[in-house]
């Protein structure tokens, strides 16, 4: 990942900053700048998600891409935030502890690094609540 691409997404990655439509009450993560339901009547506001939710489904990664190969096995899950939106994130727990429906909360962790001398990508993972 380029330094610029990581840097642009820092608000989302660190603090789960998304958006909310003040007209219909829908929440969006990643942030949308336009409400697909209210269209021109939508009023988009910034929203920081609480960072709590539940596991909708998950998989255990045992053969990872090069950047993550030393972290296997790890749990990758689709998480439904309490406000509604779903996102894909790691759950930092042993694979045999992961369960569908499990309550999770956000934690601040290293997501990856650009080699030993490149930028460190920090961001949000989840742990059982």
């Amino acid at each position, binding site marked *: 990942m380029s330094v610029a691409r990581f840097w642009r997404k820092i608000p989302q990655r660190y*603090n789960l900053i998304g958006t909310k439509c003040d007209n219909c009450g829908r929440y969006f993560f990643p942030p949308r700048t336009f409400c697909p339901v209210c269209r021109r009547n939508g009023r988009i506001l910034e929203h920081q998600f609480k960072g709590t939710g539940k596991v909708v489904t998950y998989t255990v990664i045992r053969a990872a891409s090069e950047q993550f190969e030393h972290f296997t096995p790890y749990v990758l899950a689709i998480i439904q935030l309490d406000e509604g939106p779903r996102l894909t994130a790691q759950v930092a727990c042993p694979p045999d502890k992961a369960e569908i429906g499990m309550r999770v909360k956000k934690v601040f962790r290293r*997501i990856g690094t650009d080699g030993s001398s490149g930028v460190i990508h920090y961001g949000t993972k989840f742990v059982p609540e």
Partner: protein
Amino acid sequence: MVERAGIMTYGAYIPKFRIKIAEIARVWGANAEDIIGGLGVFEKSVPDLDEDTATIAVEAARHALSRRYLEPSEIGAVYVGSESHPYAVKPTACTVGEAIGATPEMTAADYEFACKAGTAGIQTCMGLVMSNIVRYGIAIGSDVAQGAPGDALEYTAAAGGAAFVIGREDPIALIRDTCSFTTDTPDFWRRNGEEYPRHGGRFTGEPGYFRHIQGAALMMLERTGTTAKDYDYAVFHQPNAKFPRRIAQMLGFSKEQIEPGLVVPYLGNTYSGSSMIGLAATLDIAKPKDRIFVASFGSGAGSDAFDIEVTDAIESGVFKRDAAPKVRDLLKDPVYLDYALYARHKGKIVMQG
């Protein structure tokens, strides 16, 4: 009279992994009983594969802010003290500032003073707050402590941190006074580019730890016209369990006074986090009017002493002590690692490039 600064809120963080000291001794063919008996430490914390000084600092700061609502944009200063900043150049404090929503109108810097960089951050925040330059400042001591394989430090070098928000408006604890004792003493160091620190062995005790803490502590007792008996609790830097017990005795503090803050036996030495986690553990059980004596120690060498008095605010509606885990909760339910997994977690295994 200058209006005093105080602690607005605080938080700690300790990774959930541990390694028993006996397991480290087994690998190096050392006598576990001798080592455990000598240090008074039974196990130490180990970071997860994706945890480092910055992630620990962020978690500690977020725990602090979950106990008390403070407008993040009013945090005008962030200082992170550590011996293990993830970058040689690029401040951990900026990552913390961003992750707690304090950026961009703030000053920030990383501190290094062996194990007392975090308490130096508290002093800096006090100065900024008392001179009205910032409303709140946050000082953090955080480390994933380094100890070379087989070295004496490896038996205690642990991971953890604590964050203290300093301000003037209705603090949960007033910092009545602070003073420091500092000299150029090469008792412990890590040269630039080196992976592990080196130390003067037994030389670290008398001319380092004991001289400096005694220097700062006696100065504080004299300045405040107090004796050990005037305090309810005392917290000292805890590289092992023996040193803080001995310095407490030398200064006239009892076992009961240091007990709540003596977390090293089941945590290890979290370097910059050490005395600050001890203070956090003491604030976890403190009541209004309790007086706490604190003296940190950083090799190189220096000690910062603090005279702290807990206020009624700690039990008021503005502060929710139970909204974040207490230090004793963070020490509960650990996951034990053997030496091989510990080496992997600490990045001690040399990988193919």
